């Protein structure tokens, strides 16, 4: 069963019907002042409705202006979207991918490829301290790790005496 307060409110507002209304009105037989109280509550409602005390919203355009400024300040990224920029996220992604393809194609077509120097040697050095009899003779060394051998290369030498031959 509903508390008295709820039933009384429903009764004032005309929301009690049928058996509920009959039962409640039977309860109220002990309270003859209840009818006056109901009328009083209804007069209060009419009084509040007939005396709107709300002042007019002054300067309504400024209301919007101030609000839009707050919205722009508090949600700057969302506000920027309102400009409907051409550079949406999907377009930016496509533009990025297209640029990379163009850059790769240019690289392949304009930069000449140089064949790598074929050398099985990790060490190639010119012998700086050499005392040849002829200044036009120069010496370099090549070391092959795979064969574990060092080759001394002499340029400008016409011949090597047999006694100087390396073993």
């Amino acid at each position, binding site marked *: 069963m*509903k*508390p*008295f*307060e*709820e039933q*009384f*409110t*429903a009764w*004032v*507002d005309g*929301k009690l019907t049928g058996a509920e209304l009959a039962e409640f009105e039977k309860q*109220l037989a002990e*309270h003859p*002042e*209840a009818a*006056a*109280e109901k009328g*009083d*509550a209804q*007069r*209060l*409602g*009419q*009084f*509040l*409705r007939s*005396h*709107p*005390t*709300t*002042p*007019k*919203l002054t300067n*309504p355009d400024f*209301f*919007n202006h*101030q*609000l*839009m400024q*707050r*919205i*722009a300040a*508090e*949600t700057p990224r*969302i*506000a920027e*979207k*309102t400009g409907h920029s051409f550079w949406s996220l999907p377009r930016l992604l496509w533009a990025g991918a297209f640029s990379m393809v163009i850059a790769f194609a240019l690289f392949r077509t304009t930069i000449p490829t140089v064949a790598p120097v074929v050398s099985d040697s990790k060490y190639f050095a010119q012998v700086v301290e050499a005392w040849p009899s002829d200044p036009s003779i120069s010496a370099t060394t090549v070391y092959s790790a795979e064969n574990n051998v060092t080759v001394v290369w002499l340029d400008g030498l016409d011949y090597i005496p047999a006694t100087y031959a390396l073993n």
Partner: protein
Amino acid sequence: MDVPSKTMPTEAPDTATGPDDFDLVARSQAGDTAAFNELVTRYRTRAFSMIYNMVRNEQDAWDLAQDGFVKAWKNIGRFRGQSSFYTWLYRILMNVTIDSLRRKQIQSGTEFDDQIGLRNIAPGAMTAPKEELQPAEKISDGEIRTRIDAAIAKLSPEHRAAIVMREIDGLEYSEIAEQMDCSIGTVMSRLFYARKKLQALLKDVYETI
């Protein structure tokens, strides 16, 4: 609640000349502030009035209406169109207002007890005016407004909301319950005590005009 409201406004009066609310909401959800601005223009007066009826102060009503619309903008993505835009907005505005009144209540240390002075009133007993009766012709509109403001200011935020929604905005119990996120029984109980208190505070006014 999916059932369209009978009493809550579902459409602004001037929507016939422009895009309907749902179009504007959809554009707002896509980030179009111009569309949201149009919604604000449609509902700013109603929002301001509703909040003013709760807080009884123009500056506070202005600020809270702004807060409510900013909150609506931030949450516009959550609006699913299950009710009218105004029903959805109304709830936001009401929550912002009630929260503000509660904060003020805590800051000022004021404790609303709507049953103070009513505990000894027998159910159905006549309410007695507290203030001296004045002849009808002496009560100006300004004074009536002051008296109503003062009386409503003495109600707790929840009771204010219930009486404003029922008596001024004309909402049904179920709609008030939905807006306040409480049961219909709670709404009826709040209305009972709010009315009792207002009757005690305003009877001399409404019985003499």
